[in-house]
């Protein structure tokens, strides 16, 4: 299991590009945290996800 935004998903072995495509997310509009590494917008890692990876896919939202 890979944890994506707090939810477990079958995603081990997939690349982030594949995962984002599956989730219908635009890689240009999100940043990604995989464990403790931050990947800027549009700069996804090419390595596939591993079992137990914790992924956070984030974007800018409203806030004060």
């Amino acid at each position: 299991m890979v944890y994506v935004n707090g939810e477990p998903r079958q995603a081990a072995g997939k690349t982030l590009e594949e995962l984002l495509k599956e989730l219908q997310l635009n890689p240009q509009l999100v940043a990604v945290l995989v464990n403790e590494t931050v990947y800027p917008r549009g700069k996804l890692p090419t390595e596939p996800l591993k079992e137990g990876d914790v992924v956070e896919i984030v974007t800018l939202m409203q806030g004060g």
Partner: protein
Amino acid sequence: MADLLVIANQTFKSRLIVGTGKYRDRGVMREALEASGAEMVTVSIRRVEIGAPGHQGLLEEVMGKYRLLPNTAGAKTAEEAVRIARLGRALTGENWVKLEVIPDPLYLLPDPLETYRAAEILLQEGFVVLPYIGPDPVLATKLSAIGCATVMPLAAPIGSGWGVKTRALIEVFLRLHDRLPPIVVDAGLGLPSHAAEVMELGADAVLVNTAIAEAQDPVAMAAAFRMAVEAGRKAYLAGPMTARETASPSSPVVGVPLVQPETPV
């Protein structure tokens, strides 16, 4: 000579920074931001809503139009704040961050110790740090000494609309003005007169979100805040009169027609 706000070598004509939170709809938000004249707006960093429309968040709406100031809202510890700040940098491509570390859900008061720890780490990583703090000049001085770009003391709890409840301590901040980076009064303002009040005292800028977003007409309120910040700043620069203990007539006391002159007491 223009009266520009300078934060970390960036100049701003507007001394009103606005938040993007709490708007009922994006169209109103867009118009209100424009009406405010703000050049810098705060945003938050949040998980995308997988499957929901508009998962892209705010990026397309504000990118390119304003300097984006991601906040670390949601962080209760220094580590969480640092992580959110790094994500903010990854999204905006800029290293400016509004640092807020808030463990208290009732009054949303910032934790001074976690804020300081986070600031140390973020400054070492090259961030431009704008820390949200209580009205504590000692903390502000310490944050300034390690290199924070501003200090942002609260006027009242976030979103409360109470006004300048911390006025006495804000006045102390302003007495230390030359020893501090720009002082941005942030949080708790409810009316344009509150913003004018702190600008008249000499604050460098204010940050407003709820007072605009929750007004019945946010676009009109944004314009009102814009005017208030400008008026307050103009008044400060104009050198206000000194208050007196007694009255002082505005019209001449001599030459009043058809009456006997007063015998001086």
